[in-house]
């Protein structure tokens, strides 16, 4: 299976299956994402959306199938190796270091000094500080650099985690429900942010908020019981009778 041919896609998933005690959470999935594409995966609860992200980033090992990123097979790599290949992943609940400041959160995520001895002798150079400021500005947290991350609002925590990924300049950015728990204004700002950061890389988003999906998605895939129900442009998917029946109808 893993000997599939190389493609022009940034991410190509073919025949991906994972079964937990016989239950197939993801079933023969095929999914392709281009560079500069912002791809959204939607679907009812238990459709296997988060499992797909877990499979790509190595948190869950696949039963069969292939995940190729820039024509490199990911299924055999460990989590940190996948990250170092250029894949970043944001978790569903904001996953930040509450006891560290915003600055330190970004610094810890800076992709240098990743080994034991590298981190012992890591220097906080002007280059690092400048980069942290640049990212902080992008995620609208420049005035909060000294704040302990645990004191941020829920929406700011979500942005911080996105920033912690951006500082690693990933070629594939995966976001699990990035606007969950955000106010209307924060959603607007996040939509602008996502549109901006999808340039030059591929972005894979899981989201429930249809209005938000319509604003950001270049392409949409609807998952249902581990399989693809429909895929394409948001307008087309929304009209699909199968999609309306299992997901949008109620």
């Amino acid at each position, binding site marked *: 299976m893993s000997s599939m041919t190389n493609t022009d896609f940034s991410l190509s998933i073919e025949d991906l299956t994972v079964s937990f005690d016989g239950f197939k959470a993801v079933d023969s999935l095929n999914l392709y994402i281009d560079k500069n594409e912002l791809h959204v995966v939607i679907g009812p609860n238990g459709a296997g959306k988060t499992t797909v992200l877990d499979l790509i980033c190595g948190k869950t090992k696949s039963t069969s199938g292939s995940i190729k990123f820039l024509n490199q097979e990911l299924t055999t790599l460990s989590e*940190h190796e996948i990250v170092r290949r250029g894949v970043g992943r944001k978790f569903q609940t904001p*996953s*930040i270091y509450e006891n*560290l400041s915003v600055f330190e959160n970004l610094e*810890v995520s800076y992709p240098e000094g990743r080994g034991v001895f590298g981190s012992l002798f890591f220097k906080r150079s002007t280059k690092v500080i400048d980069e942290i400021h640049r990212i902080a500005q992008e995620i609208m947290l420049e005035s909060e650099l*000294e704040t302990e991350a645990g004191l941020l609002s829920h929406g700011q925590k979500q942005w911080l985690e996105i920033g912690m990924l951006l500082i690693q300049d990933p070629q594939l950015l995966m976001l699990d429900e990035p606007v969950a728990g955000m106010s209307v204004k924060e959603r607007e700002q996040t939509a602008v942010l996502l549109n901006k950061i999808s340039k030059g890389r591929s972005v894979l988003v899981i989201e429930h908020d249809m209005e938000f999906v319509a604003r950001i998605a270049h392409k949409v895939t609807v998952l249902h019981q581990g399989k693809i129900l429909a895929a394409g442009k948001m307008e087309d998917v929304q009209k699909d009778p199968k999609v309306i029946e299992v997901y949008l109808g109620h």
Partner: protein
Amino acid sequence: MSFIYDKLLGGKSGALGLLVLSILILVVFPLALDGFRLNLIGKYLTYAFAAMSLVLLWGYGGTLSLGQGIFFGLGGYCMAMFLKLEASSPENTAIQSTPGIPDFMDWNQITELPWFWEPFSSFGFTIAAILIVPALFAYIIGVAMFKRRVGGVYFAIITQVIAVILTVLIVGQQGFTGGINGITDLRTLNGWDMTSDSAKYLFYYINCALLITVIVLSRFILTSKFGRLLLAIRDKEDRVRFSGYDVANFKIFIFCFAALVSAIGGAMFTLQVGFMSPSFVGIVPSIEMVIFAAVGGRMSLIGVVYGTLLINFGKTTFSESFPELWLFLMGGTFIAVVMFFPNGLAGLWEEYSTPLMKKIRAKIQPSVTAKPSSSSYETKESK
């Protein structure tokens, strides 16, 4: 200069704390206490090494080891083996059926020095062994546990089990280890009388110097990116892993370093107390070390030194008058600390002294408090 100040001494409050501790142990104690009491303090301070190792491993790293006695003991035994071989010269042991081997071997009908005892006749090898053997053992445990992502309670239980196994092994292999009595009757170090007053003072000062060195080295680790990663791993291990770090390697490193620090304490214990026995290896001493760290403040390298001194001072005082009550009192103290002041003595100090200092400073110099504290990381850089 700024590197030394910020990275090694821990900034203003860190440097001040270290200075106060240094004055206390280097000047006040030697002047105020007689030789016997000072030797007792020296013994307590060797436990402080183990407590400090728990600050790194447990306080910052979030990994509780209930087996630091293993490494304390290994360090202590390495030193004791060297001293025992020196004490067992053929002249000293002429009355034995096999002269030239440690007395307990002779009692156990062993007629030849075991192979693993041979190299301990060299002082250089012994020093190297004190630093390498415990760290290597920790490395093996660390790789076996952390690479398989064993952590939390399971790790604590496994370290405790290893402490039990090691104790049983030492007690059971009497002919090789001295059994339950341990390795006793250590008299000279390179021909120099260890029991003399001058030796005791020298060992005490070496112990203090090593303690301060370990604090400074640990500060370097904790103020580096490694230190922030430790906190990050404690807080959100998965986030660190999915930021491109091999988390297990960081835990293995800090576990090995903690083992090394404990082992130095163990070796200094043997030198100052004059023997080593399995009662410093097993569950009880290992848990006592955790209590020292908890009471002193598991986030404070300096705090645990005071915590260790306080608990041991209490132990000596109380167990003289009410021996059966002491264990309950210590258990009660531990529970009270965990429930009411999770950051121990150091946490209490921080809580009450910082506002007080601010008040005093505000009275003396009103402008100081008005100064904004923002972007302090930049000012630190440009110093």
